[in-house]
């Protein structure tokens, strides 16, 4: 019976892994692409696989599932989770990298473009290929600065020239622009609602089919908001996201929704690309830090004696070095290594990726100490508990005691800390990039966007949209993560759920 159960929970992640494998390996072959696996991509997919396994494992264990149900029963947490999944989806799309074949080439070995694209680049192609000359405001039809143009009859005038792409379809922007935008707003609203309606109906159909119940029995409670999980809230959040996507599809190709930057690149596209950077920093850093914190913390708390002394010495020393200094030193030496070994990297994106990975590592190494200290204390407390004493009197081996009794009972702390740390790390990236020791300047990231916008803040009139875009994206991500982590903490923290 136990074996049957094990088969059950392992099927779902295996199927998901298969899908990822097809995406990563089979699709490039079919479409004649040269796929490129960056280090961070690999880590992201390993992480994804781990999450899949964990989710199905948790679903098979009633006591593990219970607190998660409590998390998702809260409307705020459900909405945040939907929003976070949208961010994660964008990040995942941006993590499938390949080089497109050059068009119009003769027979023989296929030549590939030097430019590395991601799936996101392909999807948002209409947005990011429309490169203007320089700054332009959101929804502008003219450039932000005056230029001299030669008049046909000789002589020149200083004017704001029309943009090459932004609002190029309009004959007379002065009169038509407002109506055009309103029309696009309305049409994307209706399109969005229809698409959303189809999605919701499909979901309900599948759901009722799987539960073997009448469609109306499933649909009505959801619409009335009577389900135990707030599915209506989730649906409404999806509606908001669908509407935004539709608006970006309609208006984003005709206008620059968030304007353009100094070299005329679309700011919306940059912000979307930055999502991956933020997520990588937020998650990979945790992955680096977790083994250190978990192993050292538990070992120190459980074994005590000299093991405890050594580990305490290590983390006390490490946490007394200012972490910004450590990060700056590490990043600079990585930079030197990269420039001395140019031959190791095929493309510039690989160089930038190595620096991103290095940043994750060094952030991880500087941030494991606080979690380690927490876990040490908890393991210290647990080892005196009676079920550990009972296990010892059974003659259970130390490793078994740690893995069966100690680790499962400190996982809630790990989870709470990891979820809480995520938003902090996203913000830390922005600060470090602003200081100049963050990610590579060629990598799209919110920190780099803010750094670039810094100088233009003094301009008159002000160039505010880069900063605004980075700020809003970061704000939404961090807010969603914080709201979600609040719910996680409430559900998992034994001190808060005792009542």
């Amino acid at each position: 019976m136990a074996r049957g159960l094990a088969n059950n929970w392992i099927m779902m992640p295996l199927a998901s892994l298969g899908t990822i494998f097809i995406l990563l390996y089979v699709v490039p072959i079919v479409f004649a692409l040269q796929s490129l696996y960056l280090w961070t991509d690999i880590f992201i997919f390993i992480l994804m696989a781990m999450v899949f396994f964990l989710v199905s494992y948790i679903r098979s264990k009633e006591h593990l599932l219970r607190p998660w149900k409590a998390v998702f029963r809260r409307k705020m947490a459900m909405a945040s989770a939907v929003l976070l999944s949208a961010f994660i989806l964008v990040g995942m799309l941006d993590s499938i990298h390949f080089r497109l074949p050059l068009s119009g080439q003769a027979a023989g070995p296929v030549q590939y473009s030097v430019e590395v694209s991601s799936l996101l680049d392909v999807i948002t192609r209409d947005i990011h290929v429309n490169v203007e000359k320089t700054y332009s405001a959101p929804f502008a039809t003219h450039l932000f600065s005056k230029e001299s143009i030669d008049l046909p009859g000789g002589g020149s005038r200083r004017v704001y020239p029309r943009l090459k792409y932004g609002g190029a379809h309009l004959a007379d922007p002065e009169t038509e622009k407002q109506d055009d935008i309103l029309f696009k707003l309305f049409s994307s609203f209706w399109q969005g609602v229809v698409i959303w309606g189809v999605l919701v109906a499909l979901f309900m159909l599948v759901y009722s089919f799987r539960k073997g119940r009448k469609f109306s029995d499933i649909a009505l409670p959801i619409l009335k908001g009577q389900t135990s999980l707030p599915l209506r809230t989730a649906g409404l959040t999806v509606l908001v996201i669908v509407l935004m996507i539709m608006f970006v599809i309609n208006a984003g190709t005709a206008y620059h929704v968030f304007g353009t930057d100094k070299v005329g690149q679309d700011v919306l596209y940059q912000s979307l690309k930055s999502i991956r950077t933020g997520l990588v920093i937020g998650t990979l850093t945790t992955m680096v830090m977790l083994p250190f914190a978990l192993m050292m913390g538990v070992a120190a708390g459980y074994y005590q004696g000299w093991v405890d002394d050594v580990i305490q010495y290590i983390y006390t020393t490490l946490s007394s070095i200012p972490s910004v200094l450590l990060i700056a030193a590490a990043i600079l030496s990585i930079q030197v290594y990269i420039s001395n070994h140019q031959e190791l990297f095929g493309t510039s994106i690989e160089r930038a990726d190595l620096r991103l990975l290095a940043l994750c590592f060094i952030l991880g190494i500087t941030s494991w100490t606080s979690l380690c200290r927490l876990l040490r204390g908890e393991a210290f407390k647990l080892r005196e508990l009676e079920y550990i004493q009972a296990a010892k009197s059974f003659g259970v081996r130390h490793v078994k005691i740690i893995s069966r009794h100690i680790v499962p009972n400190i996982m809630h702390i790990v989870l709470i800390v990891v979820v809480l740390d995520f938003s902090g790390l996203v913000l830390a990236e922005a600060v470090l990039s602003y200081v100049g020791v963050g990610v590579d300047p060629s990598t799209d990231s919110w920190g780099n966007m803010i750094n670039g916008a810094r100088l233009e803040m003094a301009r008159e009139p002000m160039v505010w949209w880069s900063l605004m875009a980075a700020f809003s994206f970061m704000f939404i991500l961090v807010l969603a993560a914080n709201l979600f982590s609040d719910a996680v903490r409430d559900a998992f923290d034994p001190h808060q759920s005792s009542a």
Partner: protein
Amino acid sequence: MTPPLLQLDDLKAWIEGGSHPVRAVDGVSFTIQKGETYALLGESGCGKSMTALAIMGLLPAPGGRVVDGHIYLDGEDMTRYSEVTMRNIRGNRIAMIFQEPMTSLNPVLTVGDQIGEVLRRHKKLSGNQRQSRILELLDSVGIPDPVNRVREYPHQLSGGMKQRVMIAMALAGEPELLIADEPTTALDVTIQLQVLSLLQDLQEKTGMAILLITHDLGVAAQMADRIGVMYAGQMVEDAGRHLFFNQPAHPYSQKLFRALPDINKRSETLEIISGTVPSLSQDFSGCRFAPRCEQKQDLCITQEPVWRELSDLQGVKCHYPQQKTVSVGTLSNGATTNNTGTDGLLLEVSNLRVHFPVQRGVFRRTVGYVHAVDDLDLSLKKGKTLALVGESGCGKTTVGKGILQLLREYTSGDISFEGQSLDQLKGEQLRKRRSDIQIIFQDPYSSMNPRMRISDIVEEGMLAQDLYPSPDERADRVDELLEQVGLTTDMKCRYPHEFSGGQRQRICIARALALNPKLLVCDEPTSALDVSVQAQILNLLKQLQDSLGLSYLFITHNLSVVAYLAHDVAVMYLGRIVEQGPVEDVLNQPMHPYTRALLSAVPKLDPDRQGEVIRLEGDIPSPINAPSGCHFHPRCPEVMARCRQQYPGMTGDEHYTRCFLYEQQTGGQGIKT
């Protein structure tokens, strides 16, 4: 006629919030006259404490409120009072002391500050007047050297001292009614005796009334004038002390008496109350005790009984009340040892020492040792029960852990199990040998990993010892074990939190039995349980001993459990055995002054036989710097000059003691004089 001091009239206090309100107090009426002691008896979760909180106007927020009924203080209805008025009553006319003295004092304020606060608030005293009143109060609760104690912080005081400070705080407002919520449950018997007699003295002096909340029939018998029994949020019986202890009328009260272990019930199984206390968040129809009642009839299930006055002094909430005489338990029955001869020895401990190093400073230098166990000798016969008795902090639990080889780095001395020295075993040999000795803990809540299923918990030992290699065999064995301890096999896929305290303790027993041990160390296995559940566990242990031939090392402070279960008793004081012998001999003819004091301190159930008690002064000394000579001499009523210099040797054979009183006598055969 003057109104009674306190009168509760059909009080209902519910906690609202969840889908169903919790009817913690659901129809409680009683009266307390001036200067009277009223004891509220009941098992945990029956609404005793909530009644007290309702009287104080301190129901837990959010959700707790008085939904119906009245509380009259001197004829005035307190349920109509505003919070501001209640603040003037709390601490002033009604004061309360709590169960846990460790957490009811603020650790960052001195004792004097905390008492002074009450005086400032209610008595408007200031300056020197306040100081002198604080000293007076501390003196009245028997705290030695009050001038210095005033400036001390709670952590510098022992548990008994803290409870005295709490009482001093409660007395500061000169209350007319003192509510004592389990005031001695966290204390040892000798300290309990001190606190209870202090309360009695104070009551005589000040004439205040006491509402005593307790689960201990003995404490009620010693203190109360009237007794009210609560069950599932309702008052089921209210009677004067003599009537209650001689002729309880409600079937629940009668069951409580019969479930108590004592020496006369040794040969029989204890009566148990089947089932569990019902959840208070449901709608009841009929009598709430009916599902567990043996005398129930059809009417009990359909119709809720009304309150009946059987006499002026006794009322009961039952359709068919019958006053029944119950035998009240005693510790000694005057019988002498019927020694069944010495069976083979299973465990022999000699010169066991467990010394924990005390480390200080940066380099963790060892500056001293806690002598938790010092030169301890024990022997345990096959298939018998040895009870290890003593107050908290005397090293009982450490002995258990030392025998289990859980404290090897601190232990010295010889522990021989079936003729083999356990302390000589190393590594794998020791690991294999561990299956012979198993342990059951006091707290059934922390003794199981909350993230494992019952089957995994029971199986753990088998896996560790490779007892049953195939999963099917293991599963069968788990089923067998669960049935053996009185659980059903469909429970094995559940998690520990789904079980009640008694069921958890059964699971712990099943887990220990999984390895076919020869010796079970039971570390206070019933002290966290209610009386009715305790009876179930004791019955189970006794039955397992008969069928499996187990030996028990039964660590406890509860002497009535000892009287019921044990064959031999060892009394421990500060890391050493002061007296050991067959249970009848030790309980009937205790030799060591400490044993005698311990036995006399246990509250007697029979209110007429409260007998002469030996009150021990002071607290148990710290094992870091134990007193010189006999450890007991600072508290001993029969101390001699010699006791201060030397530790006495063993006197006696089968029943021996370590006391100079008996060494002087010829042949060392101690007989109580």
